[in-house]
């Protein structure tokens, strides 16, 4: 399985992502945003950071990088895309994922550990998670307040597209556990087709218990297993 990590000017979690993918046995490569070919890859990771300095809106300008047209084709072919933090913002700006990310409700940049409840354990990104408690994963963002209107929220619910919710240590979605004011505690969503995931928390920073948590590992493991299961569909003709 070959993974591409897209690097925009201002990406700063690309190395963390590379490390996580390598450690977990994925073959990973950096791809500069001016490239426009993803034919060789099975997974594309859009890393965190501040692409283009977050000018205008987070993710807004990265959306028009040359690689993004190719990413749309890549996603439409059913290959896997994971966008983390700024990567999630880019995915909502490109409309690969519904909703938008607003300024945190308390206006602060938040750098802390949160707990996530897996709301849909059957996705390509969660099926191998075998942890009977909320995942412990760090966040680091100023604009992570997920917004979606009521109609959109109903649609997410109906299609089981909400993948992660912010909860407390015991798994309860209570206001204190929602760090940024996200609609309905949403921390991560998937597209209808199930091959594009966006999340604000950083699983790539949680792959080693020495650094606080290794709960993120299960997400990357899920992707690998989903790939092995669907290998044929990914054949590079």
């Amino acid at each position: 399985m070959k993974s591409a990590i897209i690097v925009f000017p201002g990406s700063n979690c690309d190395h963390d992502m590379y490390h996580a993918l390598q450690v977990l046995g994925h073959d990973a490569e950096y791809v500069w945003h001016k490239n426009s070919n993803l034919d060789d890859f099975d997974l594309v990771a859009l890393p965190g950071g501040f692409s283009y300095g977050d000018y205008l809106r987070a993710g807004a300008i990265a959306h028009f990088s040359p690689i993004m047209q190719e990413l749309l084709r890549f996603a439409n072919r059913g290959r896997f895309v994971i966008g983390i933090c700024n990567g999630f913002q880019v995915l909502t700006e490109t409309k690969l994922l519904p909703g938008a990310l607003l300024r945190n409700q308390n206006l602060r940049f938040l750098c802390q550990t949160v707990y996530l409840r897996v709301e849909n354990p059957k996705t390509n990104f969660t099926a191998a998670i075998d942890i009977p408690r909320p995942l412990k994963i760090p966040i680091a963002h100023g604009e992570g307040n997920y917004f979606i209107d009521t109609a959109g929220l109903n649609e997410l619910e109906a299609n089981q597209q909400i993948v992660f919710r912010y909860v407390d240590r015991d798994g309860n979605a209570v206001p204190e556990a929602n760090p940024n004011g996200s609609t309905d505690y949403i921390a991560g969503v998937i597209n209808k087709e199930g091959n594009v995931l966006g999340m604000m928390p950083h699983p790539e920073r949680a792959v080693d218990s020495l650094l606080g948590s290794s709960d993120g590992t299960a997400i990357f493991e899920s992707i690998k297993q989903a790939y092995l299961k669907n290998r044929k569909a990914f054949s590079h003709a």
Partner: protein
Amino acid sequence: MKAIVRVRLKSGILDPQGKAVNNALHHLGYNEIQDVRIGKLIELTIENGSAGNIQNRLQEASHKLLANPIIEDYEIEIIEENK
């Protein structure tokens, strides 16, 4: 020719920045101010003579890039410069 694009958060969406400024104004004694909402003003300088469908072009540019229509509304004002 110039154009001004005003981008603001849609009315139902919480504007924490506006709230913080509102509170600060109250601390300064401006208690008659009831609410503050903060948007962006984008000033564009446009090649003279490109009048034609400039309104449509700006509409498109605003929709594509300058605003995110999921969370923001925008207005476009075109200012012809008098010589």
